[in-house]
């Protein structure tokens, strides 16, 4: 693997990790909101 390819690999992996983190945070917020709404019912 050339240095350029390694850079590209790291960039892609970092992007995916950030996207996954955002999805997980989003799910946490969503489940929290759903739980509050259900408990208030």
């Amino acid at each position, binding site marked *: *693997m050339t240095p350029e*390819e390694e850079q*590209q*690999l790291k960039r*892609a*992996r970092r*992007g*995916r990790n*950030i*996207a*996954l983190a955002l999805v997980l945070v989003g799910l946490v917020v*969503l489940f929290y*909101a*759903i739980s*509050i*709404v*259900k408990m208030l019912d």
Partner: protein
Amino acid sequence: MTGSTLPIESQVPAEWRDYFALTKPRVMSLVVFTGLCGLLAAPGHINPVLGFTAVLCIALGAGGAGALNQWWEADIDAQMKRTAKRPLPQGHLRRTDARDFGVALSVGSVAIMGLAVGLLAAAILALSIFYYAVVYTIWLKPRTPQNIVIGGGAGAFPPLIGWVAVTGDITLMPVLLFAVIFMWTPPHFWALALFVKTDYAKAGIPMMPVVAGEASTRRQILIYSIVLFVVSLLPWLIGGTGAIYGVAAVVLSGLFVAFSLPVAFRRAGEDDRMAPEKRLFGFSVLYLFALFTALVVDHYLLGQGALA
């Protein structure tokens, strides 16, 4: 799936954009919109958080079905100009990853819908994903030129799911909304198929223009647009909507028929630019947005929809 025409998967790992592209974002925009309109036009009230969750689940489910569709059709997509740039034909990610991503989105969306919104909405969502990924993609599309007619059912589910998320039961009105998109799909898609015909023939997909010929397809586009005209008026005629929707349906569906007429009564020559077909396809997208907008505006301004 042997004899693959796909390129060897690259060493570079997939980017998040590749996964995003798997969900067919452009198709999803129409799905989200019609689902939201079904939810907003339904009689009754839903907590905004749960309403948001319902639309999110419809979107995730559609994305999962889209990913499963691209997983299954990667070989076909590679042979068609319109789809060759998709992430799987480009070798951006592994096929099994696309499959797993699709399954995860599908199962996750149905589970969240069931827990947060309701079991009936979740069941219909599951049915719609199964309908698109299995009945349409795997079973019908490669086998029959009626694939689009029957497969149109898959795209017709979102407003029904949105409506049921609010009311919790199925009545005539959401079924009519389903019927509108069901009748809209064949002329919408066949207009597209007329100007990308050569691609489908090459990939061995029995699209109507390839199998039944152009003349027959053009006739059928007109027939469906006339049926659509009648079906789109039904929500108004049964008293489920007010005059705003009624007038919008008459005008929009009338225009749809008007755009179909030149398509129906002409023959494409050599090097034809297919302008009437492209116009009809473009209008058909606008049509659906405008008709469902009218449905929601009607509901809020005239306060009808009591008969559901």
